[in-house]
């Protein structure tokens, strides 16, 4: 009977049933088997209204979508180009930095790919960067920034992990601090590679002071944002949810009332787009709260650890397995759902192996970041394919060196906890 149920659910999953419905089905069946009514699942789901950190998610997402729909991407590219464009491989480095900042704010890698890809791809080609390099660079840069403040997946990891009351605790601002150096590592590695790839290209001219000043003035309204968010959170003056509220309010006023790049009648549609993403994530989270409770009641993480301990007794072995596992899951499920579903299972086991819960969050996100554009079915491959009008196979081929580079970074991040924890502990 159980095997039949599992087979049916797996088939439904493969056919494309919404993930939340699958989790809800498992939770309802599980609670039923434990002799509890379905109302208990509704009660667990309602715990969504009892998580103070959760408020940061709709607010940051709204801010990100408003920025994406405005002219901010163009201004961001202009400014980073004025600042870094003259370096060898300058425009490639501009692409990396602009994408990183943008994904950090939207948390949606596909949106970055669409919004910035449209500006950056023609620019890269015009500066005579090879087509293959340009495609690969942009496809991979789309998901950079997941580790940087105020990335929504990082907040989501914190929200889910906080249920376990670990020692040391997983504070959201600790995660933000932990993500900084690993994110820089990836940016530096990709930038060095880009500079090397661009060594044969004509060196761009140094930007005139006037253009730097004009670009600064052009972006004057957006410029304070990263600083307020970074300074507010790193100094401890603002909680993550407060930084989110300040950002959302500020961006709303600037894009709608001051710059008027989103007209008032269009605002409900933009809000809807943002909340669509939030709703799709929260509903999965709600049911997974119920599922997690059931798993813990059934001692599933403990049993999982017992089984794994028989085969793997070292922390390194565990982390290696975790990397492979997360890459596959990240490819199949994108970042958010993978975090919601896997953290409750993996976190207790990882604690047994002596992995720091904050470091684990960084490992999670670093792996998922690659999974998002990993062949054969990583989501961003298809978004890039549609955006750049190239078949998916070309995108995959173009991304090959970038997989290698980012894998290298992930290995460093995984096996060198100090890189993540230096700013935290």
């Amino acid at each position: 009977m159980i095997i039949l149920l599992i087979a049916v659910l797996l088939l439904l999953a493969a056919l494309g049933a919404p993930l939340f419905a699958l989790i809800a089905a498992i939770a309802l069946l599980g609670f039923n088997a434990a002799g509890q009514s379905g109302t208990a699942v509704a009660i667990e789901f309602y715990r969504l209204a009892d998580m103070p950190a959760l408020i940061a998610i709709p607010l940051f997402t709204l801010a990100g979508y408003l920025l994406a729909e405005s002219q901010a991407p163009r201004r961001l590219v202009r400014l980073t180009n004025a600042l870094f464009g003259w370096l060898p491989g300058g425009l490639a480095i501009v692409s990396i930095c602009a994408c990183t900042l943008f994904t950090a704010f939207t948390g949606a890698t596909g949106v970055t790919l669409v919004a910035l890809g449209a500006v950056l791809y023609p620019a890269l080609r015009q500066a005579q960067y090879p087509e293959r390099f340009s495609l690969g660079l942009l496809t991979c840069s789309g998901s950079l920034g997941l580790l940087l403040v105020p990335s929504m997946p990082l907040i989501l990891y914190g929200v889910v992990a906080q249920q376990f009351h670990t020692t040391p605790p997983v504070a959201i601002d600790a995660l933000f601090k932990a993500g900084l150096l690993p994110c820089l590592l990836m940016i530096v590695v990709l930038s060095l590679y880009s500079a090397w790839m661009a060594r044969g290209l004509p060196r761009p001219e140094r930007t005139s002071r006037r253009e730097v000043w004009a670009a600064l003035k052009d972006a004057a309204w957006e410029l304070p944002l990263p600083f307020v968010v970074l300074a507010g959170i790193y100094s401890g003056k603002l909680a993550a949810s407060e930084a989110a509220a300040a950002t959302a309010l500020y961006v709303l006023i600037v894009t709608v009332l001051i710059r008027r790049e989103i007209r008032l009648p269009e605002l409900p549609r933009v809000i809807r787009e943002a909340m669509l993403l939030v709703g799709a994530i929260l509903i999965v989270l709600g049911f997974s709260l119920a599922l997690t409770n059931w798993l813990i009641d059934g001692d599933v993480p403990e049993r999982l650890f017992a089984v794994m301990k028989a085969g793997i007794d070292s922390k390194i072995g565990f982390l290696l397995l975790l990397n492979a596992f997360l890459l596959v899951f990240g490819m199949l499920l994108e970042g958010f759902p993978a975090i919601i579903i896997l953290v409750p299972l993996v976190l207790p086991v990882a604690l047994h192996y002596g992995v720091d819960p904050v470091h684990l969050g960084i490992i999670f996100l670093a792996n998922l970041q690659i999974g998002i554009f990993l062949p054969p079915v990583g989501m961003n491959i298809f978004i890039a394919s549609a955006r750049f009008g190239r078949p998916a196979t070309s995108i995959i081929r173009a991304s090959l060196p970038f997989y290698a580079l980012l894998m290298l970074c992930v290995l460093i991040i995984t096996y060198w906890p100090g890189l993540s924890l230096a700013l935290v502990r």
Partner: protein
Amino acid sequence: MSSEHATSRFLHHLHRIENGLLAILVLVLVGLAGTQIVLRIFFETGLAWADSFSRSLVLWTGMLGALAAVRDDKHIALDVLQRFLAPRAQYAARLVTLGFAALLCAAMAWYGTGLVAIDYAEGLQSSGGSVVGALRACFAESILPVAFGLMALRFALRAFAPPAHAPVLLHDPGSAAP
């Protein structure tokens, strides 16, 4: 023909109401959270009811967002296999999977009603029989049966409709294809 026209106009208005409600709730959330920061930093005070109210707003906007996501086929799913199916098989797959989602949502609407009923009864008791007090006790969670009920309905309708292909951005800066 004219009845079809009337239906589509009705749907159009319904969608506008849905979008408008979502927008208003989100704007209230942003405004309230902003006010709280100003009050805390500059006046070292705050509205006592604001925190629990904003947390309820997060749930409400989330549920309405989830309802909107059904309309655009934006719920998170593994759509690996669907890409490779023949068009006919794709429609069959939609029928099965979205029908399944509709059933689950209907079940959750039912259990959500159960939750509301429990808290209504408790509210009635603790407020000494006041209906207003009882409604206050269960108002925030009433979004669960309402939203799940509407989602069940919409999933059932979407199961027979062709897949939606909504763009990622509304203001698309244009194709980057050379």
